[in-house]
């Protein structure tokens, strides 16, 4: 029994390696297909005039004169040894450049997930219990609206609402702060900045999870053991909370895991609307700058988070449902 779990984990861990290698190859060659050169860009920014010699020096400095295979080996070796190297654009260590932005994006993702959980599980449950009543239709419409509404548009509406609302209430329009401060330094400032993007994305993610909660709970409620519980004369509340919800949560947890991983890579648009200096913005900038090392590091970071979240979800799944690990 213990051995089976152990074997499953090891097998699952090995499955992650090809995905990571594949992503590394993909990002490495995709970036090199983009026309343009970082050295030309850098020199064009500093004065406009540049000669071939200076260009060659710059390329040697950045290691761009080496063969593709050597560059690729360097990149993979750096990833394996957790040495992200320096940004080609700023020359600063990538780990330093990323840290504060990573903190911001991670916090928005966590807050969005929490928002989604608090919306999705109660609404999905009510919707399933009251199947095909007007409450059910209302919840379903609310959740489909969440999937339909672009989160960047919701973001624009939230900002608009804040401006108009505060203007009407106090006479002075209020906007969320622009500067990011870690939560332990100034929690009020931090939350008042990040709660809005979290709600804008969280509503969208709640929609997927609400529908999942509803459909799995509906399936579970038709199971024999629920009928048995009803026949025993248990309170409906006990049946839902103790018998049905627990079993219905499995796919819902999966959804939250996968959505969380997507969130880390998909915050670009929301960050743009709320003017946040997070990972998404850095992504766009580094691709535009032909900053290979930075883009590679960012892609590998997001892919690793994605793969690990999936891994944890699968392990969790196997732990809850023993049938899986024997297949």
């Amino acid at each position, binding site marked *: 029994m213990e051995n089976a779990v152990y074997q499953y984990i090891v097998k699952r861990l090995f499955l992650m390696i090809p995905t990571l290698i594949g992503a590394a190859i993909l990002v490495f060659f995709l970036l090199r297909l*983009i026309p343009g050169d970082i050295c030309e860009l850098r020199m064009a920014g500093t004065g406009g005039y540049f000669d071939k010699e200076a260009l060659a020096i710059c390329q040697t400095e950045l290691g761009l004169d080496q063969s593709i295979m050597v560059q690729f080996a360097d990149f993979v070796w750096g990833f394996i040894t957790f040495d992200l190297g320096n940004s080609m654009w700023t020359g600063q260590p990538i780990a330093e450049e990323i840290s504060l932005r990573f903190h911001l994006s991670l916090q928005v993702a966590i807050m969005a997930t929490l928002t989604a959980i608090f919306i999705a599980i109660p609404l999905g449950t009510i919707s399933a219990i009251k199947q095909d009543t007007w409450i059910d239709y209302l919840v379903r419409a609310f959740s*489909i*609206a969440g999937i*339909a509404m672009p989160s960047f548009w919701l973001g624009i509406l939230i900002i608009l609402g804040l401006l*108009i609302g505060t203007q009407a209430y106090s006479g002075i329009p209020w906007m969320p702060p622009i500067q990011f401060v870690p939560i332990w330094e100034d929690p009020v400032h931090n939350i008042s900045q990040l709660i809005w993007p979290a709600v804008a994305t969280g509503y969208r993610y709640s929609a997927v999870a609400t529908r999942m909660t509803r459909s799995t709970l509906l399936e579970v409620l038709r199971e024999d053991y629920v009928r048995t519980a009803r026949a025993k004369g248990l309170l409906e509340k006990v049946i839902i909370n103790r018998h049905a919800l627990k079993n219905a949560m499995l796919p819902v947890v999966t959804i939250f895991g996968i*959505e969380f991983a997507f969130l880390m890579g998909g915050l670009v648009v929301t960050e743009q609307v709320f003017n946040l200096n997070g990972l998404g913005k850095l*992504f*766009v900038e580094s691709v535009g700058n032909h900053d290979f090392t930075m883009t590679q590091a960012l892609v590998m970071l997001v*892919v690793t988070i994605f793969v690990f979240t999936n891994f944890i979800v699968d392990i969790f799944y196997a732990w809850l449902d023993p049938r899986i690990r024997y297949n």
Partner: protein
Amino acid sequence: MDARSESQSITGVELEEPAKSQSWLISVLDLTRRQPLGAAGAIIVIGMIFMAIFADFLAPFDPVVNNFEMMHVAPSAEHWFGTDQFGRDVLSRIIFGARTAMLVGFVSAFIGATLGLVLGVASAYFGGVFDLIFQRIMDVFMAFPLIIMALAVVSIFGTGVENLIIAITIPFVPRCARVVRSSALAIREIPYVDAARALGYSHRRIILRHMVPNVMAPYLIMITAFVGQAILLEASLTFLGLGVQEPTPAWGLMLQGGAEEYAESAPWMAIFPGLAISLAVFGFNLFGDALRDVLDPKLRAQ
């Protein structure tokens, strides 16, 4: 996303023969009664397609002509949805924007899902090493951040509708392939596939004539889901400046071009295009949900 759960419920779907005696009109009415939300979705979808096709006749103004005497006009009898910072009629731009949205939505959903269908069935049919390698490649594309893919495609090929379609199609392929593959795995076990092979049919014929028709249900469900997602992605990428470029009317572009800047003084510029996107995606999702209920007997309410 919910591919994992979908694949479980879709596995082993068998399409039911529709009753021949039932007249076409009665079955439509019956469906409307049983799937009121789906019928509402179908009406929105048909409306959007209608708008896209007949934009030239429906739009009251030219969507690309600037009129600097009519900038930021609030919604009125003449300009129902107001005008933008160049004096262009917002309603006309929304009507023409439907054309861009439907084009990108349908083309990328169809290509993405069809490639996924063929690859997914082939992967399930051949199995073994081919299946294993194929699955790992699909894993990579699933894990790869979509925005980066889009950024790369646009940086390599340039912006424009065709490249936008490429960028949106790529992530659809593995998602569809995964769902179709799990359905096809179940079908592969049914004896008629073995029978077809015993008769000496070619791989291509078995895949295209015997297996593909039996995974049509998940395929159709995926297509409708993808159209909605593609419209959203088109709007998001265009909003980021990676998609459709001015002056082509597109919903995402309308939200990008000054809508934020003028949000307080001209909120109609931000509100109506967003409503158009939401309504379109809403319609496709409602329709897709109903389609899933009809095609997937396991989820059908008893």
